[in-house]
């Protein structure tokens, strides 16, 4: 049960993010979560959106290089120590986290961790076995 994340290649130039948002604003795309990883010359914008397929095609039409990748959306209580619990679980299970980002879901008050693993399926099993709820693609689009 994984969620499709969109990543976009961006050069480190003023105005490039604005070009992305401009491309997305007219096609009913709502960005649920967003993060940027950057190196000296370029960055990778990663997003969870309500409609990944439309977002990809809109961005491609606008000339961006775009990819869709599976990430896990782990729903956890918003409390002290929860991050350590998750990290501990991953460490013990030998899961290597490529990167992660998180946000608080307003209605439920739960925290959602978007996590990218080398092996998505193995990670999925570890979380399920330890009683964590993973959001489905549909749920992630609706949050």
């Amino acid at each position: 049960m994984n969620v499709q994340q969109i990543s976009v290649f961006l050069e480190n130039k003023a105005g490039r993010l604005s070009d992305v948002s401009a491309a997305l604003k007219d096609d009913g795309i709502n960005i649920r979560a967003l993060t940027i990883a950057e190196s000296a010359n370029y960055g990778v914008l990663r997003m969870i959106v309500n409609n990944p397929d439309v977002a990809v095609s809109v961005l491609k039409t606008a000339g961006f290089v775009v990819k869709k990748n599976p990430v896990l959306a782990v729903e956890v209580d918003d409390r002290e120590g929860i991050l350590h619990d998750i990290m501990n679980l991953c460490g013990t299970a030998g899961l290597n986290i490529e990167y992660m980002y998180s946000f608080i879901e307003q209605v439920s008050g739960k925290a959602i961790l978007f996590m990218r693993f080398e092996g998505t399926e193995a990670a999925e099993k570890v979380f399920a076995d330890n009683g964590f709820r993973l959001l489905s693609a549909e749920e992630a689009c609706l949050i």
Partner: protein
Amino acid sequence: MIWDKKHETMPRGELTGLQGQRLRAIAQKVYNRVPFYKSKFDALGVKPADIRSIADIAALPFTTKDEMRDVYPYGLLACPLSDIIEIHTSSGTTGKPVVDAYTRADIDLWGESMARTLSMGGAGKDDILQNAYGYGLFTGGLGAHYGAQRIGATCIPISGGNTKRQLDFLRDFGSTALTCTPSYSLYIAEAGREEGIDFEKLPLKRGFFGAEPWSDNMRAEIEEKLKIKAYDIFGLTEIIGPGVAAECECQNLLHIFEDCFYPEIINPDTGAVLPDGEKGELVFTTLTKEGTPVIRYRTRDITYLTREPCPCGRTSVKMHRILGRTDDMLIIRGVNVFPSQVEQVLIKAEGVEPHYQLIVDRRDNLDCLEVQVEMNETLFSDELKVIEHKEKEIEHQLKEALLVHSRVKLVEPKSIARSEGKAKRIVDKRNI
């Protein structure tokens, strides 16, 4: 000092006579001994007997670099292999290397022409010559070496690189002459300044610089920083190596050793020989080489010739330093680089037609090459480390292919300017 007074100051009439006589002999020789040339002569219907004077050279076929590669390794030999005592080749980065095979007489010729070169800049037996051209297959190192020995100078075969040691040697051995690429001389100057070396106090007097394009501005900078006279020298592996042409003390255009290496300027499109003063493609014929004589080699370098008398007393034709190329070749740190080589590497890495641009600049007096590559779906990943790994991989493969380091910069699609749909492949910011 004029090293070979007889040939370097020969009256024009006598010189053209000598050239004609040598051309007849070489045409006869390659026709008889090199099947490659025989078939080229036959294709044009030219017989060696048709060559009566140097003016008849226009009847002979041109030779291109590609043709020379096609007959790699020994197809240009005009003597038994047992008479060859040394072999050099071009770097071979764009295909098979071009082979230059030298008989004992050819090595003598090379030493003589480099002796002329060094003497032109005032070097002699009292000089201590620090030879920082690379030794090996590259003709720069050994060419300068043979010349230095011929004039009786004390040659230090330090080869290229290891700048700290270059500085130590300049100081400790009191080198009076330096031979290397012009950009490396500036690099040495800069490194010396940082070490607190006062070049005014060093015995270094003169430098002989070539193997890459440079300019009068660069000369002024080298002379100012190293406190020397800087001379431009010219040569190419296909002909003999360095020692084809050089500047005299007037530092105004390069004297071509035309009694041995006969130059022509042609229209690169029609092949027609152009008069003095007109710019065109430089073509060379070796008049005296034994091992691998070359008939009308098209250098793809653009320049012009002049036979105006030179105050130094030499009568030889002079050429302007190379003004450009008829192809898209770049010279980066003395290494020939073609955009097509970069393209080959990128096609392999990306699996598709790449969009790229080469940005050449000179930083801290060294040429640097940046290869901008438009990002595409094959190269892209959501993980930075994967992108960075691919970047490094491409850099590595480019190094293997070009023999010179480059930095890869990934840019967004369509960000490389296209004119008439075609990307401009080269941006040279070196101002040389």
